[in-house]
């Protein structure tokens, strides 16, 4: 029976490697036929910002990779409302279609997981 894996993303992109690594891990988890969801809160919301251009810091643009995830049946993107709004972002600013949740709703969803991995 598949387990519910949630990937909790709380760090800004490019300042550290976590966003890039999370993208790797979710694909592998899906390949193991587990239930995969991604939560973005705190600075993790910035990971989904449209228009990344990391050429000037000589890093690879991994923004497009989020858009490819639904092709692998990974399409549960949850964004915590308060984190998003505190950063002046709206769902239109984000690379993928997300479900915006209150902190409480996200917390309840986390309770229902079998495994939570923090990035």
């Amino acid at each position, binding site marked *: 029976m598949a387990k519910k894996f949630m990937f909790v993303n709380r760090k800004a992109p490019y300042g550290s490697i976590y966003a890039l690594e999370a993208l790797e891990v979710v694909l592998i988890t899906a390949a193991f036929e587990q239930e995969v969801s991604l939560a973005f809160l705190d600075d993790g919301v910035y990971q989904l910002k449209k228009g990344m251009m990391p050429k000037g810091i000589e890093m690879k643009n991994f923004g497009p990779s989020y858009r490819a995830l639904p092709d692998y049946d990974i399409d549960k993107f949850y964004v915590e409302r308060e984190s998003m709004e505190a950063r002046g972002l709206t769902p239109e600013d984000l690379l993928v279609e997300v479900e915006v949740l209150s902190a409480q709703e996200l917390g309840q969803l*986390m309770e229902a997981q079998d495994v939570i991995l923090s990035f």
Partner: protein
Amino acid sequence: MLHIINKSPFDRPTLDTVLRVAQGGAALLIEDAVVAATRGCIAANKVVELAKKMPVYVLGPDLEARGLADRVIEGVQVVGYDGFVNLVAEHRNCQSWL
């Protein structure tokens, strides 16, 4: 769910995030996070608030390392690594708020 917090409330926002998001279970303060559970620390009120929602534990060896073992606020319980292991075992999942 067991919420594991390892950073000082002065240095990272994780205690705030747990207060906002966590819907129950228990919380364990380890490493630099233990400073939050000490008397006189202005962040201790956040631990008091969290303790209204769920039991809060703090790791004794990390308190002792920092010379703070005699300053633990009321309402939180000091545990050793054996207690840490028990807490993980007792909750069906855990989240390290890194």
